[in-house]
């Protein structure tokens, strides 16, 4: 896809050249304009302040310290707010990282396992969602939350289809996206979603992002 006026700009940060190049290629062919590649957290922060990109795709592990990538991501969220969205690529299947990163809000934030780089479409999909102000939580991370037996016990009252919709909601997908993924109509998804919120005694949020937070909080709740 040729870069146009509306093509979102992105900076890719990873200390591995192979991954950097690979992600750059995938995003470029996915409709992004890669305006910079950073090898370290400091380089990334430097580049962001210069380029003010729409999106940053950053490896959680980067020099100098082990989780410098994560710290840089948090710094960028703090400093630029919704102007620069952040998609973190992580080696860790640790919901705590994702939840902490989400912090107060999920607008324009993503936490994806690095394995997704091997599935170009998933990466591009998540990048677009985040760049568009939405959120993207890796399905495996959501599964990790759901597989928590306590949560599973509480989710037992949901029908299998409702559980699938709940998982997709936790990933940060919109009803339309869920419908496309589960091959259901948008109307059906809306109905299922209402049923889920009713069964779990959750307040339906005014927007998708609030909905993600409510669902994640519900899944992570330990009482």
């Amino acid at each position, binding site marked *: 896809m040729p870069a146009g006026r509306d093509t979102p700009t992105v900076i890719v940060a990873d200390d591995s050249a192979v*991954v950097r190049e690979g992600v750059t290629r995938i995003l470029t062919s996915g409709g992004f304009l890669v305006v910079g590649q950073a090898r370290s957290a400091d380089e990334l922060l430097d580049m962001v302040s210069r380029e003010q990109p729409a999106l940053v795709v950053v490896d959680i592990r980067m020099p100098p310290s082990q*989780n410098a990538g994560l710290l840089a991501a948090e710094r960028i969220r703090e400093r630029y707010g919704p102007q620069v969205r952040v998609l973190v690529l992580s080696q860790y299947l640790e919901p705590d990282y994702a939840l902490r990163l989400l912090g107060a809000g999920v607008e324009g934030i993503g936490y994806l396992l690095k394995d997704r780089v091997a599935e170009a479409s998933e990466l591009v999909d998540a990048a677009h969602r985040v760049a568009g102000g939405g959120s993207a939580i890796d399905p495996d991370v959501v599964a990790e939350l759901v597989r928590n037996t306590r949560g599973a016990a509480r989710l037992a009252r949901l029908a299998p289809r409702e559980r699938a919709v709940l998982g997709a909601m936790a990933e940060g997908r919109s009803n339309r996206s869920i419908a496309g993924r589960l091959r259901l109509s948008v109307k059906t998804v809306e109905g299922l979603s209402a049923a889920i919120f009713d069964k779990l005694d959750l307040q339906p949020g005014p927007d998708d992002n609030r909905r993600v937070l409510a669902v994640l909080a519900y899944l992570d709740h330990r009482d």
Partner: protein
Amino acid sequence: MNARVVSGLAGVVFAVVTALVGLDQGAPARFLVLDTVLGMIFFGAGLLAWRRRPDIATGAALTLCGGLWFLGSYGPTDLGGLSAVGFSFERYYDVVLAWLVLTFPGGRRDRVARATVAVLAASFLIRSLTRLLVYDPPALNPAGCPGCPSNPFAVAPNAALLKTVEVATGTTIVAAYGVVLVLLILRRRAASLPSRRILWPVLASGVLAVAAAAYQAANLVSDVTRDRGLLTLEPPWDEVESWLLFGARVLIPIGIAAGVFRLRVAQGPAARLAVEVGTDRGPDRIETALRQALADPTIEVWHWDGGLRTWTDEHGAAGTLPQDGDGRSVLMLERHGTPVAAVAHDAVLLEDPGLLASVGAVLRLSLENDRLTAQVRHQLEEVHASRARLLAAADEERRRIERDLHDGTQHRLLGISMRMQDLRAHAETAGAPDVLFDELEAVALELREAMREMRELARGIHPAVLTNKGLAPAVRTLARRCTVPVDLDVALNGRLPPAVETAAYYVVAEGLANVARHSLASRSEVRLAVSSGVLVIEVADDGVGGASPDAGSGLRGLSDRVAALDGAMTVTSPTSGGTCLRAEIPRL
């Protein structure tokens, strides 16, 4: 034992014979009793002292004095040969006594004292031989001597020679006694406090007895030269004189026996030293204990530093070891021929030979004990430190492997995955057959599975979240993954030292793994809290219980890990149900 019995029997025989001789001679009852009693006192005191301290000659010497006393008592009898022998060898006990008091309790090497006693003994011998060979009362007494016994040993009676010898030896004897008296007084002044305590009865009675002996010897010289004694005493003063002389003689066996008994008491310091050295733990404890035990405030203890090849005092300061001499003496303590320590002390302590030997033995034991204790403590510290280092090294190695897996292997796998995608795109462009696409898809799936496995492997080797985010999130993940519902109660503020976090993490991991595997529990609980500087970790469940803390190498390894951090771990698992794994680790 045998010699003592023989001496005792000899004493009894002497006493009986003396009594019989006295009765036969029609001696006044007073002399009879006094002669027998004084001899028996010598024997009695000698035998007591002998039994108390068989290792020194004092007791035997006292019984010898008893025998010599009895022998001398036969002089003034009319029993011919017996009288001659008695008269010739009278008062020899004074020589033995002088030697006794000068050398008490034995082992003293004092040249002047030895020379004095030698002069004394020589004078006595010359006088005895002269009396035995040239003195025959009937022959030398022109006026006749009714009732005087004749001397069967007198080969050439000679009054002039006898007189000359009597005067010469008598004068020498008086002078020698004078020297003995001076030596005794000097010795009293030179003695340290503890040895004065031992010596005073000996020295006091010795001075009295030697003074009496000197007086009697002088009296004899006066008698020979002037035909009268030193003092011409009218009754009852002559009676007083003889009682005083008798009293002086009685006191000496008693005084010497008392000295021997005090020697025994003086050995107590060794035992007292053992107790004090064993309980006190101060740096100069040995010096203090020695000073108290031996009542010698001048005692210094020196330690040999084999490494620096110097002597150091009890406070570790290097210095020069004092030398023998100037009233000081040094007791050297050695181990396998090399010096360990030395005790510099007042030389008078040498007067009791057993004292320093026993004190030295106690010190040697104590120092050896100290050395072994320090050695064991040092080795234990070494082992402790090396165990902690091994653990830290192993943990660091695990972290390194985890890093390498993520930064190396995973990136490589990702690279292959991306090339697979390129391949797929190329195949599409080139219009490859479906079977190729299926194969590419299968390989891509395998690759994803490999990456997933690698991620789990890396996490098992070392959870990065523990390093990056600390114990609480790492334990949350463990709880999330446990197949048995887990109640988490984590009360931690901030981070803990890495070694503590790692150990605590493994305690929870192993605890929850056991809950999932063996307990059949429906619920479990994990508690983490810091209480007075100690991290307390508890993993409890409501399962079947009966778990053995020794079961499985997992718990044992865990216990070692906790112990390496000075912590402790317990497993409570009654067969009535429920298991609680509890570990306490100091926060370092």
